[in-house]
């Protein structure tokens, strides 16, 4: 029997049983649409987060004081606290040829006030290089001046929320604000970064690192942010940093280096796993659909006993009968799969209307995978009914009127 004839026969059987066809298509489309919507959500969340992290800069290295690993040997009975990261360390690292830019960071919290308006906010002490390292955009004015790290200056750059709350609509640049009991002149306003992950840039006040250190009376650094010269030089930069810090810290490598890559990879892995789990949960509905396909096909086989008996009497082999019923199941589930994808796409469009900021899209591989999963489900659950049909005894089948 020619394959196209098999499908043509299956197609007439599908068309002449509209209720059965409808049932299977509905069940299958629910399964496929939920799988495709949830896959799209997971995938979009993943690409969204990764995009956000990549926006931080692709060759970013973050140095944290302290280390999560022990150095081996005896347990530290007398306790050994890690040495602080200092501005001197930062200055020393500047000598590495693999480092393009370096920004020391201290962070603290302090009240900020202007003309009697006051609020508590995060104060970040850093240097001019921070702008480059974190890819910051200015709404107006300029960023911190490029001076030596240890030189305090009474200037600050503020975030959009701070500007709104303390200055509302009055001009900002050149105005003075008070942090604790020190005065700083506003020289710039950061552009709003509504979706940035991590520190809320909008509620930040950035001042030179030396000023922050005296402000908080704390001379250790919170982090050092480093941009390597290229992606390739990241490892060399990492080695340089380890070597230099170890030298400066009495032979102890008491820092942790986090690379952009490792963060992105971690999130990528976590979110991919999440997507997979969510998709599997949605897959249960596909299983239910598959069982329905099997049920309906079994009923169909019982219903068409005479026809099957006749086909056998006319010389159809068991393989041909299996082929006929399997192609019916495949056609039905393919139709269900396509319907499900259309429903899924419509739901995604709807979601996109509701959450326009969130990038939603079903990747092509997921689209093809959904279709093939639908067909495979149909085939797997169509095997039993098809086999039952093929095994029918033609004489008994034909004795029924």
């Amino acid at each position, binding site marked *: 029997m020619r394959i196209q004839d098999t499908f043509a026969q299956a197609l007439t059987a599908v068309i002449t049983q509209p209720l059965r066809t409808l049932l299977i298509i509905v069940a299958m489309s629910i399964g496929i649409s939920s799988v495709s919507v949830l896959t799209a959500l997971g995938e979009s969340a993943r690409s969204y987060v990764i995009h956000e992290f990549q926006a931080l800069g692709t060759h970013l290295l973050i140095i944290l004081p302290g280390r999560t690993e022990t150095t081996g040997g005896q347990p530290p009975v007398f306790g050994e606290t890690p040495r602080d990261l200092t501005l001197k360390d930062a200055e020393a690292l500047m000598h590495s040829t693999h480092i393009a830019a370096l920004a020391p960071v201290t962070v603290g919290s302090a009240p900020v006030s202007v003309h009697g308006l006051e609020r508590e906010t995060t104060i970040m002490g850093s240097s001019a290089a921070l702008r480059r390292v974190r890819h910051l955009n200015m709404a107006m004015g300029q960023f911190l001046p490029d001076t030596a790290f240890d030189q305090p200056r009474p200037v600050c750059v503020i975030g959009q929320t701070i500007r709104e709350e303390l200055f509302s609509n009055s001009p900002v640049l050149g105005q003075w604000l008070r942090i604790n009991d020190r005065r700083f002149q506003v020289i710039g306003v950061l552009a709003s970064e509504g979706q940035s992950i991590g520190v809320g840039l909008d509620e930040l006040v950035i001042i030179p690192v030396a000023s922050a250190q005296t402000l908080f009376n704390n001379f250790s650094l919170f982090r050092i942010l480093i941009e390597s010269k290229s992606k390739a030089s990241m490892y060399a930069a990492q080695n340089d940093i380890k070597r230099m810090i170890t030298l400066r810290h009495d032979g102890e490598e008491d820092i942790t280096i986090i690379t952009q890559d490792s963060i992105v990879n971690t999130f990528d892995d976590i979110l991919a796993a999440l997507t997979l789990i969510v998709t599997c949960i949605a897959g249960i509905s596909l299983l239910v659909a598959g069982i329905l396909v099997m049920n309906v096909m079994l009923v169909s086989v019982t219903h068409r006993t005479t026809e099957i008996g*006749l086909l056998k009497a006319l010389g159809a082999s068991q393989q041909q009968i299996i082929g006929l019923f399997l192609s019916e199941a495949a056609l039905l589930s393919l139709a269900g799969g396509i319907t499900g994808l259309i429903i899924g796409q419509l739901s995604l469009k709807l979601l996109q209307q509701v959450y326009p900021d969130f990038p939603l899209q079903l990747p092509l591989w997921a689209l093809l995978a959904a279709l093939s999963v639908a067909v495979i489900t149909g085939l797997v659950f169509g095997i039993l009914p098809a086999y039952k049909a093929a095994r029918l005894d033609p004489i008994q089948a034909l004795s029924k009127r």
Partner: protein
Amino acid sequence: MIELNNIHRDFQVGEQTVHALNGINLSISAGEYVSIMGPSGSGKSTLLNIIALLDQATSGSYCLDGHDVTHLDETILAKTRREKIGFIFQFFHLIPRLTAYENIEIPLTLAGIAPKLRRDRVTSALDAVGLTDRASHKPDQLSGGQRQRVAIARATIMHPAILLADEPTGNLDSHSGIEIIELLEQFNQQGVTLLVITHDASLGQRAHRNIRIIDGQSST
């Protein structure tokens, strides 16, 4: 053409074993016209099913066209059925969703013949049974006689050497019954071996040879 040797066919009905066929010996040569008669339950349908390769004998041997077909695997059996045997049923057994044309076409489709060749053969088969103008009718739009003609066209479309009819007129009025028998006899005159099971003695007498089956045994 057909050689049956000591054919037994037992059925298990509950605790009891029913001997539907009890040592049948039968030899039919090519081109013969044979009627099989007998009371209900005598085993004549079972005999026909075995000849049609729809059923297998419990013991005994069956030679078809010089080949032993007693024990063949399912695929070859199906192929032999398709190519050598045409079967006509009392209840026509047309597929209700297909037109007369499409019903006749089934065996050709199963045999994997190209659509263009199929069209020619179905058209001439429809012509042979006088139903050219009913080609696109569904079975429920046809009379009993017409349905049986479609069934005959379907049974003969592969040009089988043997035509088996299990009470082909059992569900028809006597007028269409005669027409159907005459149509079958036409095929016999063209050289097709014809076996007809019938209850109707007058139809049975038309055959060149009559076989009576009583209690699973034949008497000529």
